[in-house]
């Protein structure tokens, strides 16, 4: 190999690394700003200019009552919607990967639509439906709307995770005297649980995060994102940054836990779906 090519290769590698670094910076910079500004001591109502370091907002994260209330609303909606969507979505995923039934391709297609359709279409069409049926906007409508897109998300994620699952394990369990129910709960469920848990976590985050669909179907109910958006013209208190950073820390640590668990399972079980 000549010196010229090796120099070119080195330059090429450096260029790739630089571009990748810039890309990551682009993704993470806004998040870093949010975290850093949770330690800012702003003058006035808008936490957008760096003034000085303080821990006082972390000492009192719930100082803004409307913001705190909105966070609770979001957490409650996410909890209920995620439980429903996880159960329904996992059942869909299991039946899709396990059984060959008439209409299976149709179900596969319909699953993708909520993931690919613009949120504004989903949100506005649901709102039209609710108005048409005379349903009052509030918790129920938001939860229904969230379940709507979460089911697809859970089903697609779980289906991907249990691809290649060895269904003869269930046969083996029944062969050993387990009822079909017991075969599912003692064999299949523990093995696919990590996949289901991962899907549930992600869809929980989607629910907390959702703005557009929620906006159409919330009525006067204010979720965390709606509250921040609505209040942002009047004030941007540092508590927004504190609560957002908390949410970020919770989700990052859950992901880390998941990865650690996954590594341990793979070591103990060999390669298993989920």
């Amino acid at each position, binding site marked *: 190999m000549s010196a010229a090519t090796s120099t070119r290769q080195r330059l090429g590698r450096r260029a790739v690394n630089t571009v990748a670094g810039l890309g990551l910076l682009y993704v993470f910079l806004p998040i870093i700003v949010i975290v850093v500004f949770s330690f800012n001591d702003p003058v006035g109502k808008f936490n957008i200019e760096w003034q000085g370091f303080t821990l006082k907002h972390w000492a009192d994260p719930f100082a803004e009552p409307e913001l705190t209330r909105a966070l609770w609303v979001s957490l409650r909606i996410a909890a209920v919607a995620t439980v429903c969507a996880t159960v329904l979505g996992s059942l869909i995923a299991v039946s899709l990967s396990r059984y060959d039934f008439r209409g299976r391709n149709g179900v596969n297609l319909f699953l993708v639509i909520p993931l690919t359709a613009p949120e504004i279409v989903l949100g506005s069409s649901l709102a039209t439906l609710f108005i048409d049926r005379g349903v009052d906007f509030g918790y129920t409508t938001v939860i229904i709307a969230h379940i709507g897109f979460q089911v697809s998300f859970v089903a697609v994620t779980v289906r991907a995770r249990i691809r290649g699952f*060895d269904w*003869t*394990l269930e*046969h*083996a*369990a*029944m*062969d*050993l*005297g*387990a*009822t*079909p129910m*017991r*075969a599912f709960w*003692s*064999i299949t469920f*523990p*093995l696919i649980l990590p996949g289901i848990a991962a899907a549930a976590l992600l869809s929980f985050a989607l629910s907390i995060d959702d703005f557009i669909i929620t906006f159409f179907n919330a009525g006067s109910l204010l979720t965390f994102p709606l509250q921040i958006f609505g209040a942002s013209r009047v004030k941007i208190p540092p508590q927004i940054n504190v609560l957002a950073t908390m949410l970020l820390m919770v989700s990052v640590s859950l992901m880390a836990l998941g990865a650690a668990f996954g590594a341990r399972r793979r070591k*103990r*079980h*060999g390669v*298993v779906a989920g």
Partner: protein
Amino acid sequence: MRLDHATKRYGDFTAVHEANFGITHGEFFSLLGPSGCGKTTILKMIAGFEQPTTGRVLIGGDDVSAVPPHKRNVNTVFQQYALFPHMSVADNVAFGPRNHKIPESEVATRVAEMLSVVRLADFAVRRPAQLSGGQQQRVALARALVNYPSALLLDEPLAALDLKLREAMQIELKRIQRDVGIAFVFVTHDQGEALTMSDRIAVMSQGRVEQIGSPTEIYRRPATLFVAGFIGSANLLPGTVASSDAVEVRVSLAAGATVTVPGSQVAAGADVSAGAKVTVMVRPEQFVASASPSHGDSIKSSVTDVVFQGASVRLVARTGDGAEVAAVVAGDADVSFLRPGAGVHFGWRADAPYVLSGWPAVAGATTTDVDRVEAAL
């Protein structure tokens, strides 16, 4: 245990046609045939994973055709073992007894007993992924046998093991079967495996049971051309009956010789009236090769291949009508006259040839043609 005219259809496809046989207590029974012949479907009907379309499955005299698998007193060893990866070896083995609500103290005793039967007592706390293939295989056996089933069903359990281990496991399986004294129903496409282990073998082809018999019966007295070709290798020589009486049948072969076969060496039910199309089977080890025609019947051919195999020498030769035949002679025999292209006369003991009805799809030896060997697997 018995299958009573059990037929299984999937749409237009008949996977099993009128299977009708019994399996007695304590016997090692093999279902042997190429893939897709219906042997695994029969096993699934016994286990309860499939229901016969028509006919019945009886276990211990009771009709269990509609009984689900978890209520049948038979257990299966699956092809890929299907061990539960999230459970220890001991918990895998204990799974069956716990389902049957057996007290935990007795479960522990039984598990320990079974693990020692399969020589895995030291591995109770391991996970399946930490075991070798042969060990996983034995866990699967222990997990099934710990339930004291009335029969154990094995679906090609040795297919995933390499050759040496497979041979050792064949002997081990036979030992375990003698120890526990229950019927083993063993599905395999490997005729050597079936011959080694079985008390009786059912040879299947395209959903039909072609013959049921002891290994020597199906090897020496195959009922059909399929069985003759599938079990071991055979030289199948087509011909027509020249004459026959109570003592012997004379067949003129397409290869250009006339063979006299004793009446006792005719397949049951074969038509040997003069002019009938028949096939004379001679096993390769029954051929006696010589440079000049010996007294008695023989066929003339020319050598195409001589393969030294240590204990034996395998000869491939071509007869006058172009059929390829094979012979196996002892490794220490003088075979110096057998060069490719040389003429050779194959003779045999008078009671060696065996007559079957019909003509084979391809005349000659059954295991020299790669495509046909492959098709049979």
